[in-house]
C-alpha cells in the first residue's frame, strides 16, 4: 500500500505539499512514483519562476513515459532540488524526503486549505484504482 504521511497536503494530480512558514515544498506522492516506475529524468523550473495554481512546473520521466508535474498552489519558485539532476531515482526511493522538487513562496497561503488531507487522498487513490 502506498505511503501517505499524515502531516502533508495532497492534490488530485498526486502532488504533495509540505508547509514551512510561507513556503510550500512540493513533490509527487509515493503512489505517483510507484505508478510511474523508474524515474530517470526530472525537469524543474528556475528559481524566480512564477506559477499559478494547477499550472505545470516541470516533468518527471520514466524509461517509458513523460508526466507533467503541477503545482497545486500559486507562488514563486524559491529553490529547486538540484540533486535530482544527478539522482532522479530519489523520487522513487524517498518521494517525501530527498525526492522533493521545489520550494515555492506561496502567493496565497490560504490555498493550502483547499487541498486534500492524507485520509482524503488515500480514499481518492483507492477509488481511482477500483
Amino acid at each position, binding site marked *: 500500500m502506498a505511503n501517505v504521511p499524515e502531516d502533508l497536503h495532497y492534490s488530485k*494530480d498526486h502532488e504533495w505539499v509540505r508547509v514551512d512558514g510561507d513556503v510550500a515544498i512540493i513533490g*509527487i506522492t509515493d503512489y505517483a512514483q510507484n505508478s*510511474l*516506475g523508474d524515474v*530517470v529524468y526530472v525537469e524543474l523550473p528556475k528559481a524566480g519562476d512564477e506559477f499559478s495554481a494547477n499550472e505545470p512546473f516541470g516533468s*518527471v520521466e520514466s*524509461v517509458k*513515459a*513523460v508526466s507533467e508535474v503541477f503545482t497545486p498552489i500559486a507562488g514563486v519558485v524559491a529553490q529547486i532540488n538540484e540533486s535530482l539532476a544527478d539522482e532522479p531515482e530519489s523520487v522513487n526511493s524517498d518521494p517525501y524526503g530527498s525526492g522533493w522538487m521545489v520550494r515555492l513562496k506561496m502567493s496565497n497561503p490560504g490555498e493550502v486549505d483547499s487541498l486534500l488531507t492524507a485520509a482524503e487522498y488515500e480514499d481518492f487513490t483507492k477509488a481511482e484504482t477500483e
Partner: protein
Amino acid sequence: MVIELTATAPQLKQTPLNSAHRQLGARMVDFGGWDMPVQYPAGTIEEHLRTRNHAGLFDVSHMGEVDVRGVDAIAFVNRLTSNDVSKLVDGQAQYSALTTPQGTVIDDLLVYRLAGDHLLLVVNASTTEKDWEWIKSHHTGDSVELKNVSADYCQLALQGPDAQTILQKLTDVPLAEIKYYHFTPGRVDGIDGIVSRTGYTGEDGFEVYAAADRAEQLWNKILDAGDTGSPTGVLPCGLAARNTLRLEAGMALYGNDIDDTTTLLEANLGWICKLDKGDFIGREALAQQKQEGVKRKLVGFEVTERGIARDHQDVVINGERVGQVTSGSPAPFLKKNIGLAYVPVEFANVGQQIQVDVRGKLVGAQIVKTPFYKRAK
C-alpha cells in the same frame, strides 16, 4: 501529475499467461489490443540490466503464427516476402518482411523452415489479422494450405548470457549445437515444442514455441530453473524492457520505425531485400529505389545535451524540421538517451549534429553508428 491507470479491460485479448503476470504483480497495459505486462515490480531498468547480465523471460505469446504447408510453400512465401526463403535449410529461420508493391512494409516477420513443404511465419501481434488477410488474398493457384495458428501457440523468450544454462536444465535438446537463427523441434520440461536461437534483445537466447495450454507450466519451470528471486536469477520482463533492449540493439519496431509508409531501403533493411531472387511483391519498386537512391534514411542518434528524445518528436537540422524520431528512449545499459529517426539522406552520416524538439525545447544530439549496443561474443 496524470496517472494512466491499469484497469482490467475485458475486451482486450489475453495470452495464456495473463493471470501469471497479474500474480507476479505486473502492471498491465493495452498493447495493440492485447492486455500485456509492461513491467513487473523489479522495474524496467532492473529487467533490462538483468537480461544483459544474466537472463530475462518474456511472454511473447501475443505474436501471431501462420502455418504454410504444401509443395509450393517456399515459392508462395518467397513471392510475398523480401528475403530469400529458398536459401533456408530445414531448422533455419530468417528475418524478412511482407512488402507492399511500393516496397513499404506490411510487417516484419520470421520465416521458419520446418521442412521443404512446411514453413511457419511469426508475425507481430497487432498486425496478425492484417497480415493474415494479406497472405490469404495472395493465395491463388498455389498448392499450399494456410492456417492462422496464432491462438494455438504460446511463445516464451528467454534471453541473456545465462539463457542456455537455464534452458538446458529443462531439455535434452543439445542447445549448444543450435546456431543463431536456427531451431529444432524438441521437448522442454516434457512439453513438445520448437526451440529457436532467436530473440529481440541483442543478447544470446532462445524463443520456445509450444501449445498454448502448456504456457504456464513452461513459464514457471523456466523461472524456477533460472533461480528467479535471487539477485542474479532470471527476471520476468515486460514490454518496456523488451523495447529498450531492442532499441539498444538497433532493431526496428514495426509501427514505430517501419510501417507501410517506409521502404525497406529507407529503414536500412536492404540486407533482407534479395532483389535477385526472382519476383516478389515490391521488388520492382525497391530495385528502382535502390538505383535512384533513397531520399531519407533511418539513423541512430545519441542525445548530447540534457533531455530525453521520444517517439514522434521532430528532428531539426540547421534550423529546419527535416525528420522525425521514430523510437526515442533512455538506454538503461548504455546509460545514454538514444533514438532512431528518419533524416534526409544528405544528413545521414555518423557524426552529424542534429537537434530534437523535446516538447518545445531543442536538444542537441548526434548521429551515431547502430547498433548502439553489441554484445561481446
